[in-house]
Structure formats: C-alpha cells, structure tokens
C-alpha cells in the first residue's frame, strides 16, 4: 500500500495538521513503509473473532451520580493563551 502525497494531504486535513511540502513527502514515504509492515495482518482470517476494544478485564463501573465541586473558572482559565472575561478567546470563526 503506497500512500500518495494527495492522500497524505487529505489525512493531514482530517488531523488538523498544516504540513509543509517537505513533511508531506516524508510522511508519504514513511507511512507507506509502516502500512506495508502492518499488511501482515491480512494473512489472518478473523471473520469469526470478536474485537477487543479495551484491556479492562471486568466491565467498567459507573460512579455515583452526585454533584461535586469542579474547577473554579480562574483555575480552569489560568493556562488560556487568550481570554475574555471567563471565556477562552479564539481567532474569528467565520471566514
């Protein structure tokens, strides 16, 4: 399975990564090599096998549905790159 630069660009868009042209070239090559290696799985017939989605060996437990204090706004906003009042500020959304 060889990835084209166009496919790499598409995946980068999905992943919200603005890659440079050099990165696109390099990832096309490196990801193709990894995909070639994982193609090993094709030789296994797993049509009758259930998937394992999680390593948890017992089912997970819901916790009590009780109100608990959460982070105060000042603490939650302390790492914000930009803020307005008690909100996170972002560049304009409509282009």
């Amino acid at each position: 399975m060889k990835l084209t630069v166009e496919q790499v660009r598409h995946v980068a868009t999905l992943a919200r990564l603005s890659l440079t042209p050099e990165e696109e070239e390099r990832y096309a090559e490196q990801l193709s090599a990894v995909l070639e290696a994982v193609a090993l799985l094709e030789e296994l017939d797993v049509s009758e096998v259930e998937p394992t989605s999680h390593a948890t060996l017992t089912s997970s437990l819901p916790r009590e549905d009780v109100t608990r204090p959460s982070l105060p706004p000042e603490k939650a906003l302390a790492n914000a790159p930009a803020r307005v009042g008690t909100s996170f500020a972002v560049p304009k959304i409509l282009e």
Partner: protein
Amino acid sequence: MQPTELTLLELAEKLAAREVTSLEVTQACLSRIAQVDGKVKAFLRLDESGALAAAEASDARRGKGNPLGPLDGVPVAVKDIFLTEGVETTCASRILQGFHPPYDATTVRLLKEAGMPILGKLNQDEFAMGSSNETSACGPCHNPWDVTRTPGGSSGGSAAALAAREVFGTLGTDTGGSIRQPAAFTNTVGLKPTYGRVSRFGVIAFASSLDVPGPLARTVGDVAALLQVLARHDPRDSTSVPVEVPDYSADLEHGVAGLKLGVPREYFTEGMDPEVEAAVREALKVYESLGATLVDVSLPHTKYALATYYLIAPAEASSNLARYDGVRYGLRARDAKGLKEMYGLSRDQGFGPEVKRRIMLGTYALSAGYYDAYYLKAQKVRTLIREDFNRAFQQVDALVSPTSPVPAFKLGEKVEDPLSMYLMDVFTLPCNLAGLPGLSLPGGFTKGGLPIGLQLMGRPFDEAKLLRIGRAFEREHDFVRRQAPL
C-alpha cells in the same frame, strides 16, 4: 556510603531509625542531580522548594512520632506525563510548554499522601511516543551506563535517574514497553501493572486502552513498596478496577520452588542479540536450580503483535491528541488568520515529527473506508493475542523472556528509521495488548558492560507473584548493587 547509594527500602529503614532526616536525603539527591545530571539529562525540571518543604514536613511528622506510612520522607520523581499541580508539565512537547496543571494526577496525590517529596519532572519521549527518549522536545536523555547510548524510552528519564542514583523511586508509564525497556537498558527494575490496577486519572493520555502507570526503582522490593502506595481503585478513572490490593511484600521471599515458568518459544527469535539470549537462558537455569519447573509454551500470534499495536496505539493517539488545539492551554500559533488556520499551525508547530507521524497513521487507520481493514481488524487480532496468553496461563504461573531483543543502542542509531525503532518493543507490547502485568529486572551484563533485562509476564492482578519470582532471581546475584560508571 553516600545516602544516594541506598535502596529505597534501606533509606526507609534509616529514616524510621532516625539515622538520617528526609531533609538531608532530599538535599543529597539535589546535590547528586547538580553533580551528574548535566551528563544524563534525566530531569526536565526540578521542584526544589516543593521537595524541600515536603521533606521538612516529613521530618516534623516523624519528630512527633506520626509518620504517614513506611515511605514517609523518601524522595521520588515522576515522568513529565503526570500532572503535578502548579509544577509545569509538558509531556516533553513544545505544545504544552508553560502548562501548569490545576490538579495532581491520582498517582501523584498518592505519593504526596504517603509523605514522599517529589524532586521534579523526568525526561521522556514526546507524549510517550518513542523507544529511546530521543523524540523529547527537550533533548534526549543519556544512559548512565554509557552516555553515548539511549536509556530506552519512553520513560527514559525515570530509569536513568535511578541508574544515576539521583533518586530512590520514580513513576513511568507503559503503553508498549515504556517502563520495562528503559528498566532493562539501565539495570533497574520496572513494573507495568495490570491494566486497571493503577489509576490513569491525571496521566496525559497516549493510547487509552493500553496506557498503564507504574513504578521503577533499583530493587524488586523497592518496586513492591511503591506499588503498595499506587495500587488503588480510583472512582475518577472508570477503567480502574476495584480488586482487593494484596500485601505485595508478604510473599516476596518465598522463592520459586514448585512454580511453573513458561518459556514462550516465539520470544527466542533470530535477530536477538546473542548475549541477551545467553543471559536469559542462564536465568532460566537459575530458576530451575531453585526448584521451578520450566515449561515450553507457544504464543502463536506473537508475530502479529507489532502490527496490531502500531494500528491501535496511533488510532487512539490521534483521538486523544485532538485536544491540543491552541484554545484552552498550550501553544497557540501567533499569526493565524482564522480559527482553522490557528488549529493547523499550532499543531504543526507544537508537535514533533514522531507525534505527527503517529497522528497521521492513526487518523488514516480510522478514516472512512479504512476503519474495518485496519482498526477493527487490529482489535480482532488483539483478541487472538489475549487468547494465546489465556491458554498459556492455564499451564504456567508466569512467563519468562528477554525484555528487549538488544541492549541499549547508540543515540541517533535508529532515529531516521521508524520501523526499526518500533521493533524495539516486540517483546513488551503483547502484555499491553492483553492488559497483563509485566516486570523487567536486571538479568546481567554484556561483555561491554551494558545491562540486560529479564522480563516476567503474569496473570491479571498477579503482580505479587511476578515480584516474588523476580526477587528469587535477584537474590542470587549482585546485579542490583552494581553502579553505573558516571
């Protein structure tokens, strides 16, 4: 003898006997760090004032006869992936530079509640993605046994700090071998607990179905003592399992007589370093001489584990790392025209090449048209790998293998070749896929003086038996007493 040459449990005894104070020992650690860490680079940052204040508080408690527990006053350090309230936490990534967590990871809180001063944050691969500590945005960590070599990864700093005698115990995380392989490369002991045994709350997520936090130290007994502090059900982690916590030191000295140890034939493959193989074969003889029965077992799907892992882990990583978008914390690209451009530029500038590679791979494996062929397929093969282990554990108490096919390699040797780097995890990642506990302990040295790791794998929640089997071997050698030539 310098206090930094003591093991964690020896120090705990001396503190209890009031032969030393926590403040003296914490200061000794800080001077040792000042003396050798320029060469090792195990620490990304220190919390001197926090550690010294915790040490003074510990001494005050002891003065009044009220220590918090057996490890009160013993200095430790944690991988930078653990959130530490008020102390910068970057996961060795540019994208989290300047991030000061508003709360502690559960594991960090447990260390503090046990009275243990935390010296600082340890080097690692960026977001724990790597097997050599070279993807760290803060620069690589060096192996104290040979500073031109890697200490392993991703918890390289957690292992190197111990080998350099800068600290008595550390926390690491293990997604595909990231505690055990660094332990193997540095003559230290590292435990990857059963998935669900130790809380992941406040541990920066890489691959959520595989990530497990765990302890590293210089002896098996030290690791058992740390696990005693960490193993706990945590309602804040829905995958934390409320299984009873045993006394991990109770059976430690009980030996291996009568136990059945499996030798998985797929773990003795071509391409393994002959000195590594010889050391593990020698360890097997030791176990036999101590009364254990060796059983030849097969884990037939082992050869598919690497491919399975390198689909599942990047897929989960691509989802987990979607949160780094420059909005609420971390790096934000300055000159973006709109929101979308800000996302893309922030992520491109903030993530290093290996992280981007895995995000790309994971995004591809989850994208429309490929989900069934890659991600779902890998999850099904994961079931086969788990079933291999289940069958083996019907016959044996534990499995014995090398931790890594090779000893520590040179820094720079594999950086340009992702696939050969991924192969470094071939013996460790099956445990993660199956959720099982795995222990790496010193298994000897190469002729050139590089450490070799012995790996034990066990049944779910059977950490106590792994520690006991590890201790039985440790007792027969002086490996843990050997010091890195710094």
